[in-house]
């Protein structure tokens, strides 16, 4: 498990231990990865983050068209593994969790401990302002630094 911000580590570790999730990705609503577990290639994690953020944006637009604020989560049930995508508010802005899990656990367990992780993240998030968005001229170096942190490369 790798996280860009240290206060994310403990809630995520508890969630992983309790839920038996295979893959977990925490990202901002714009698709910037905050923490990941289970991904072995940076390309996979960046793709999953981009697709996850896109799906959440699409479902939130569908919710708006249907006259509801937003959906609490989205679960794709698969035969061998399933995927849950859920957006939530934090003091650092709106984040998205993407969780892939297999038949060794259940969607009820994953949702239960995901909600507990969200509550822990909200209570342990530093209250100071989040860093400003990365400027275009710094984007490549920032991305490179984030990937090194998330995948442990030197």
């Amino acid at each position, binding site marked *: 498990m790798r996280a860009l911000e240290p206060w994310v580590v403990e809630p995520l570790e508890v969630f992983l231990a309790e839920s038996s999730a295979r893959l977990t990705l925490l990202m901002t609503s714009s698709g910037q990865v905050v923490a990941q577990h289970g991904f072995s290639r940076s390309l996979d994690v960046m793709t999953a983050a981009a697709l996850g953020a896109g799906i959440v944006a699409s479902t939130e637009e569908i919710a708006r068209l249907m006259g509801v604020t937003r959906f609490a989560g989205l679960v794709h*049930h698969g035969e061998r593994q399933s995927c849950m995508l859920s957006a939530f508010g934090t003091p650092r802005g709106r984040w998205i969790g993407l969780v892939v899990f297999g038949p060794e*656990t*259940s*969607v*009820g*367990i994953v*949702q*239960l401990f995901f909600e507990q992780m969200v509550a822990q993240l909200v209570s342990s998030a530093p209250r100071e302002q989040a860093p400003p968005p990365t400027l275009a001229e710094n984007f490549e170096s920032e991305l490179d630094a984030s990937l090194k942190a998330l995948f442990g490369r030197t």
Partner: protein
Amino acid sequence: MSTVQGVLDRVTRVPGVRGALLVSAGDGLIVAEQLMDGVDGRAAAALTGSLVGRLTRTAQQAGLERPAFVHLRAEAGSVLAAPGPDDLVLVAVVAPDANVGLARLEMIDAAARLS
């Protein structure tokens, strides 16, 4: 009254029962519920569904049949579960002074009526 509501009514009428749920064991989600205030039905459904699923696999690996009834006793009460048809589990959350024997009989009979 639907069969499911009738089943939950039978269980919650037993003295000391704080709530009854019908749970889909495979995904740990609530199908129907009758709970007193303060009972977290979603947690009970998720955790009991997982417990029954693991106990069933354990029993089958040991060459036994699936459990007919599960009683998880804790300091502040018990969780009772009676597996039914179609991956459904009838769950009851009971107080320490509940009539567990009567609850067990009602749950086993009610779970069989779900088919």
